[in-house]
């Protein structure tokens, strides 16, 4: 990596900003500003810094509508908002997807709009930690805050996740390296364990690596639970791991003072889905008979957890909430975005602060091509190519302040550092405008 000299040419430093990238929500980021532009970022990881720095690249700045020739044409805000409101008001099975990269403040009018038109509201959990949320509903949530891990944990387990690549500051800021109140020597006072079929960058750093086979998570956790209950394991290898290793690991886990288990999509999206999390949670409950253990999902987007908390608080269901019959319903496979698209049920799709064009499976995207798509976002991306109405929003945490929830459910108020481009509007304003305009159309048609 080439040496990059430090940035010295700036007007001011905005201190203690919150990084709007992953679920670690690092709130110690300093943003260097010159002429209302970000010229440098301090303390953030490369992922966070590049998101904040390269924001101007491919930025959506004006509202657009796709014309008869299939080209996106620039229009004024009124025209674009009216067109979007018409589409939403006339839909039979609208889906409002996204929300994980915007603030709680924008979700509030979004939920009101969903209720008004009888839509489905869903977020990225539907393709990431949805199974986690289901398992938590089934068997509970033995969670903690990341501060507790920093100050107390002497064993940290990562499974099905690779934070060195996906949450780069997670080990450095919260779990493994920092010196804590009871862990004065930092890394030396902790045992780092990775359970992962892959020899990931996190596994390379670990003291113990358990490479169980793919899809073997459920059988592996079940075996540890059996050992904890005093059973002598019968099979020589369980999920590809020798039984002696499982017994030795179980002993280590029993003899820690404070253990923390972190899991990612490697656990939520293998064969037995939510049951992997279900049994991991119960394993943690079992371990609490011997010592203190906690568990936390490695949430991806900076506010994906916020949406689930907001929805669960407001409506009782965390994601994929369907208001088509006037009351909230929630059923995986029935009221979730991918299934509604795969089944070609959805007839108007609004995406806010998400990029389904880059992440959805082919079948779902094929249907998005056929139906009107409204996009509220800050960047030109694959979803823009699918969009019929484009409404440019602002960047939460850099251009607009707002509230988000960290992966451990701690709410964090994100400051703004610069002003947004003049032609863009805040997400909250856009969603609220849509709500008012749809209300007017509904009242006129009564």
């Amino acid at each position, binding site marked *: 990596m080439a040496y990059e000299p430090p940035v010295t040419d700036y007007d001011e430093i905005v201190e203690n900003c919150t990084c709007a990238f992953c679920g670690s929500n690092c709130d110690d980021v300093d943003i260097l500003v010159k002429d209302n532009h970000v010229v440098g970022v301090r303390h953030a990881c490369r992922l966070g810094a590049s998101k904040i720095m390269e924001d101007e690249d491919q930025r959506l700045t004006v509202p657009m509508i796709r014309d008869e020739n299939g080209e996106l044409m620039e229009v004024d805000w009124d025209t674009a908002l009216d067109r979007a409101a018409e589409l939403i008001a006339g839909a039979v099975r609208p889906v409002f997807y996204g929300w994980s990269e915007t603030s709680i403040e924008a979700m509030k009018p979004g939920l009101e709009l969903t209720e008004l038109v009888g839509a489905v509201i869903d977020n990225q959990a539907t393709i990431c930690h949805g199974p986690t949320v289901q398992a938590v*509903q089934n068997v509970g949530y033995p969670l903690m805050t990341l501060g507790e891990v920093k100050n107390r944990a002497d064993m940290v387990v990562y499974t099905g996740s690779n934070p060195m690549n996906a949450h780069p500051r997670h080990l450095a800021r919260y779990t493994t390296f920092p010196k804590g109140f009871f862990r004065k020597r930092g890394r030396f006072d902790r045992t780092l364990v990775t359970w992962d079929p892959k020899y990931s960058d996190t596994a390379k750093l670990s003291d113990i690596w358990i490479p169980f086979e793919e899809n073997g998570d459920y059988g592996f956790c079940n075996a540890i639970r059996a050992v904890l209950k005093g059973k002598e394991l019968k099979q020589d290898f369980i999920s590809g791991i020798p039984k002696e290793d499982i017994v030795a690991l179980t002993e280590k886990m029993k003899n820690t003072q404070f253990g923390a288990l972190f899991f990612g999509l490697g656990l939520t999206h293998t064969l037995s889905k939510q049951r992997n999390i279900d049994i991991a949670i119960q394993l943690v409950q079992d371990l609490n008979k011997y010592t203190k253990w906690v568990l936390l999902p490695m949430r991806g987007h900076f506010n994906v957890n916020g949406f689930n908390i907001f929805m669960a608080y407001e409506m009782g269901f965390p994601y994929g909430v369907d208001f088509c019959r006037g009351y909230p319903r929630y059923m995986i496979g029935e009221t979730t975005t991918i299934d509604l698209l795969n089944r070609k049920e959805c007839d108007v799709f609004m995406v806010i602060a998400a990029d389904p064009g880059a992440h959805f499976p082919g079948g779902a995207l094929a249907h998005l091509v056929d139906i009107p798509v409204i996009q509220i976002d800050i960047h030109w991306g694959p979803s823009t190519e699918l969009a019929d109405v484009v409404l440019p929003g602002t960047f939460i945490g850099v251009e607009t302040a707002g509230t988000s929830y960290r992966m451990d459910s701690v709410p964090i108020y994100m400051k703004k550092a610069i002003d947004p481009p003049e032609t863009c509007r805040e997400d909250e304003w856009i969603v609220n405008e849509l709500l008012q305009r749809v209300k007017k159309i509904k009242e006129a048609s009564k």
Partner: protein
Amino acid sequence: MQANRGDVNVKQITLTPIKFSSVALEFDELIPDEIYSWSKEDFEKYEVPVGNSRFPLTDYYDIEVEGEAQSPEEVKMIIDGDAGRVKYIGGKMGAGEIIVNGDADLQAGAEMEGGSLTINGNAESYCGREMRGGEITVMGNVREYAGTSYIGEWRGMSGGKLTIHGNAGKQLADAMSGGEIHVMGNCDILAGIHMTKGFIQIDGDVTRWPGGQMKNGAIVINGRLERLLEGFELDAIVTDPEVEGRQFTGKYIKYIGDIGVNGKGTLLLNAEKNRHHL
């Protein structure tokens, strides 16, 4: 058309599909308990929920009504064609009979309390969810979560009988607390997970992990099981066992589990086909 069942006079309602809707129709209001007193005109006036709207049922179906009914028990409703986009067929029904001559969509027989539902095709996921009574027969396959609980709920199917002539998908009968399921074909992972009571019989092969975290109840597998969980302890080899009042012939390997949750559930594997577990 014959409009009686045995010696009881029945009201026969026949719905013949004329138009397909890609947005699923919801039939939770079209159950014998609601419609036993409806005339043909009532059906023609009825608007069926489709997405966030309601449209006339006559847009989608030709409706025929024959005979009279004094109670839901005397109703026989036939959906004479594919209902692959009709959800909640027989949802919460308490009596009477529904026959689907084709596939059924999600939630067929969900929260059913009585009566009978026959699907002469395949059923989508959540068939017989939280079923409390009555009988469901699926002549084809079912997808995931048949006889299961509401998402996040820890109490699933508690009564009635679900018979599947084809194969069953993943996580059959999650959190089952009563009733009976008979799968005549194969079954995918985690049948009877979190089960506390009830009976599951699978005649075909099973991929992995039946009875994960089961506390009680019984699962009988007559085919080959690939992977067994460590949470099951070998109890005995039994001959001609009787399980929950049903007699089985031949040798079976009996396991007790899942010990991870101090479970006392019974898992019986056909000994001939499961020698590899001994």
